[in-house]
């Protein structure tokens, strides 16, 4: 896999306010990289700088090896951006919106018609191409919005909150589309504050707050790096005052007459030993459950519970 996006020590200051503060990350081809952060964390500012529209105060960006501030058109030819706002012309049809994107994306004119049909098919709008966008539902608009970013076959896709305000069916279709694009070798930078979407889609994640990258890695790597432990919940005939002796590295969190809750770093590996220890102590375990810390838990631990605007 090759790096489609390299961001290094990126800083953006707006007068006294620092929106992005030393951000470093990379996105490889075939990878969905999630940039997670609360509102105002600096995600959208970072993406705008990647498009080459907003000049950073310092730091460097390479899109497919091209500096977007030295060769902006070459860099933009390699990236497709679908921002948070549905930037569609509602008084035009879906096909006309795609034609506009094809013109702006410098797609050869002879390919425009077939590419539009291909994309409408991809996002499930093949039968609505001639309809004006103003007659579309929110989900349909969001799908067309994504299709417009793809029209010139970009290698890197920047998706800023792409799943906001859509129903489960549209969400499933869009998630599936993004996975397929990544499987075809497209690199995807996804900014979101939705933990479920991020967990479902992203191979790697970067958690950002106040313009700084707080943690980065796979979900498992993030759990490990933060020391978050799994919880094992066992139901059976325990004695509240005398929990059974447990293997090393397993800590009792709670013990009641019918339930024992323990914490350990790798719950799936420790489970057989914990069950054996309970059995040795004469406890009949009716049910066992492994509870892993969620991304949300990690996110809140890193970014805090303070409300953001």
């Amino acid at each position: 896999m090759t790096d489609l996006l390299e961001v290094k020590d990126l800083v953006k200051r707006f007068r006294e306010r620092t929106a992005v503060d030393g951000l470093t990350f990379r996105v490889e081809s075939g990878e969905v990289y999630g940039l997670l952060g609360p509102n105002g964390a600096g995600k959208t500012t970072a993406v705008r700088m990647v498009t080459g529209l907003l000049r950073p105060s310092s730091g460097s960006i390479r899109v497919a090896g091209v500096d977007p501030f030295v060769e902006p058109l070459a860099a933009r030819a390699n990236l497709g951006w679908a921002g948070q706002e549905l930037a569609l012309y509602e008084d035009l049809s879906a096909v006309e919106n795609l034609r506009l994107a094809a013109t702006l994306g410098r797609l050869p004119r002879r390919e425009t018609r077939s590419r539009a049909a291909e994309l409408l098919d991809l996002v499930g709008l093949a039968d609505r191409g001639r309809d004006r966008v103003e007659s579309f539902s929110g989900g349909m608009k969001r799908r067309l919005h994504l299709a417009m970013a793809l029209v010139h076959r970009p290698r890197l896709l920047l998706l800023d909150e792409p799943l906001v305000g859509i129903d489960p069916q549209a969400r499933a279709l869009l998630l599936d589309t993004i996975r397929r694009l990544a499987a075809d070798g497209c690199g995807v930078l996804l900014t979101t504050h939705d933990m479920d979407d991020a967990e479902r889609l992203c191979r790697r994640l970067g958690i950002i707050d106040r313009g700084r990258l707080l943690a980065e890695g796979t979900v498992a790597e993030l759990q490990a790096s933060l020391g978050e432990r799994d919880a094992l919940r066992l139901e059976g005939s325990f004695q509240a005052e005398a929990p059974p002796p447990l293997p090393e590295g397993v800590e009792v969190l709670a013990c009641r007459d019918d339930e024992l809750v323990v914490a350990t770093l790798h719950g799936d590996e420790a489970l057989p030993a914990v069950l054996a220890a309970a059995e040795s102590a004469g406890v009949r375990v009716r049910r066992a459950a492994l509870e892993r810390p969620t991304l949300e838990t990690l996110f809140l631990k890193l970014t805090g519970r303070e409300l953001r605007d």
Partner: protein
Amino acid sequence: MGALPELLRLELRRRLSDPLTLLTWVAIPLLMAGLLSAVFGPKGTGLPRARVLVVDHDRSFASQALLSALSNPRLEGLLEVELAEPEAARRAMDRGRASALLEIPASFGADLLANRPVRLQLHRNPAESILPQIAEEVLAVLADGGTALRAVLVAMVGDQRLFAEPPSLAQVTGLASSVYTLLDDPSTRRLLDPETLSVTHRHPPAKAASRSAVVGWFAPGFVVMALLFLAQGQSSDVQEDAAAGRLVRAFSFPTPPTVVMAGKAAALVAMGLFDGAVLAVAFVAALGWRPAAPVAVAATLVAAAAALVGLALLLRGLTRSLPAGNAATAGVMVGLGFLGGCFMPTQLLPGAFQAVARVVPTGWAVDALRLAQAGDDPGGIAWRLAALVLFAAVTLPLAARLEVRKAVTS
């Protein structure tokens, strides 16, 4: 710039996809032309005339000649002259029933022929501005003509003291003979013919003289006004695009933002041209507007549309929100319409305003159209066109830069 034609096509497609808005933009100038046609057209009452009351204290041959000149059929379209008794004339003026009162002094004829200074007194109706001005201008032209005529008469007759004493029969016969000889002379006839005394009648068309003169009075201003309103209204689209994120998204594609903005500006100019052309054709068809230099009119329309669109986009670029942009463009456009002579000739404005009018794009556009209409002063048209093109060349790129900056930082 390869994307520009397609961007222009899609921009126009968007605007034309809303028939109601399109109809409104076309209907406004057509409605104006229709109303004006109803007022000034074949069935209308025509241009309001200045009612001039004349009190003749002299009742001489010379005062009769002046009255005849004022009542000449060629001035009928401008003046309605009525001989009145002094008291009745003053009462009519007090009640505002006349635009002006002209008093011919008792010694008018004698002073004129004795080569003494002659003073005519014109009382203007203070409640009116344009019509008394017309009367005053006409009278000034006639006075100039009368002065020239007196010089010729005196030279021909050769006796300045002719009427100092009662003339003999032989003198009267000789004078009559000299006058007839004089009137037969073509050079003298030119002086007596009001055609040479009236600037507005320098190029009198055969039949539609009065209609053409009327439409020529307001057509240039109305055409520029239509361009102003269109530029003001349609330029809001750019701010709407910016607010909806469409501009910044367009800029994220591998097409230079300046080309994107050029496509939008070109569409606005095309719409302005369409609107201006509809109005011009309506003036031609309904009111008999016959510009002497139609190519210059067309060139002025293009340059004026570009300049006014540039100005509107610049104002939009300088304001942060759509309501602020609407307020700024509306205020500035109405002001420039007034200063540029869209609503009334700039000659009627106070001196300071006239000075400003010479340096605003609406003034250049209206003046260029008036010159193209008259078909003279190609140099005057050329420099005004150049000024409009220069104005557009400065404002359009500047507006594009402002809009790009706003879009990416908002």
